[in-house]
């Protein structure tokens, strides 16, 4: 292989496009020719330099400049106009305000007892809204009050039953201590015994839960 032949095949050799026999010839020539070795190394370096070159980024206004020079000032489409109008609504603070407004509106609708699917002229009267809102508010308040009252009654009943249930056990435990200890006066009763006695004097048949709760529930039943 001559220098000229090797020179002509330098790119094909570096891109791996030589056939096996041709490649062997080429490499054999490189083995004995330092000039061609230097040449191939130089070409390889030039290719690497080109491939390593960074792609330049044009100025951001270049595309706008081209568009202006070709299609002129572009008229935004309806979709883009809508998007630009709605864009501020997606900011967090605006979204929060809109969310709160919707929430308040839904509360108002519920309180006023409006059915949005079946709106009548009467529903649009603000006096009807106030009347319904007032009624709903009072009903809510009365239900809450009744609920609290019921809770109090149940709690009181529970505590009384607990007390009654504990009484016989206490009586049994404290029965032996009723005998006076030697060397002491028997006039004074044990505080526990006194309580038992006092309880026993007022011991009546235990009232039923229904009997106790009945008047209370009757009181609140008118609200339901």
């Amino acid at each position, binding site marked *: 292989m001559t220098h000229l032949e090797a*020179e*002509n095949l*330098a*790119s*094909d050799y570096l891109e791996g496009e030589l056939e096996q026999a041709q490649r062997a010839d080429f490499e054999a020539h490189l083995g004995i020719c330092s000039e061609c070795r230097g*040449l191939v190394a*130089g*070409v390889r*370096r*030039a*290719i*690497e*330099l*080109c*491939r*390593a*070159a*960074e*792609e*330049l*980024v*044009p*100025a951001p206004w*270049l*595309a706008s*400049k*081209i*568009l202006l*020079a*070709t*299609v002129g000032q*572009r008229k935004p*489409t309806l979709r883009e106009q809508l998007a630009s109008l709605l864009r501020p609504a997606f900011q967090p603070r605006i979204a929060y305000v809109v969310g709160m407004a919707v929430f308040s509106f839904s509360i108002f609708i519920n309180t006023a007892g409006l059915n949005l699917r079946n709106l009548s002229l009467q529903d649009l009267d603000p006096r009807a809204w106030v009347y319904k809102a007032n009624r709903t508010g009072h009903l809510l308040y009365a239900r809450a009050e009744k609920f609290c009252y019921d809770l109090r009654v149940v709690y009181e009943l529970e505590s009384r039953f607990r007390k009654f249930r504990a009484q016989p056990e206490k009586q049994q435990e404290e029965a032996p201590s009723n005998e006076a200890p030697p060397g002491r006066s028997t006039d004074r009763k044990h505080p526990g015994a006194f309580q038992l006695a006092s309880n026993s004097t007022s011991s009546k048949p235990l009232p039923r839960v229904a009997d106790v709760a009945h008047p209370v529930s009757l009181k609140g039943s008118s609200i339901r």
Partner: protein
Amino acid sequence: MEQDQELVRRCLDGENPAWEGLVCAHSRKVYNLCYRFTGRIQDAEDLTQEVFIKVFQTLRSYDSAQGTFSTWLNRVARNHLVDHYRRTRKDRVTSSLDDDSTPLPELPSTRAAPTASVESRERRELLQAALDQMSPDLREAVVLRDLQDLDYQEIAQVLGVPQGTVKSRINRGRLELARVIKRMEGMRGRAIDL
């Protein structure tokens, strides 16, 4: 590629957003091609704009059966660059007598370390200076192949010559580029690391 065809079709139907899509998708490649031919940012911007104006005016002449839009665009750009080269040859000779060492303008900064940035700039300047010294025929072949990453067939379509000629030009171009780089590094007194 199919996306380009679709954008071209919509452009021809008068949809401006489609044209915008084409400009955004291809302006970078055209800009780089122009920069490699001229070596000046300002010229590259002006030429890119001129190329797209030409494309806009002649878009109806694009035939998808003859190749991709990208290849057609490269051909239009290359022809425009050759015209520009011929048009400004006289001016260039005159200006080169006045000022032979026009510094390259500052390119967009990178986030690399300062040393790496300096080396990168040196490489870029060396490559551009070497390309500027090559003959236009060989330079365009090397730019299209090694910088724009086109294959032989595409380059043949862009240049309008057979593939054999393309291969030959690329090989001769690389040999010339290697010689120029070697000479320039000899003048600098050191080789630049890749």
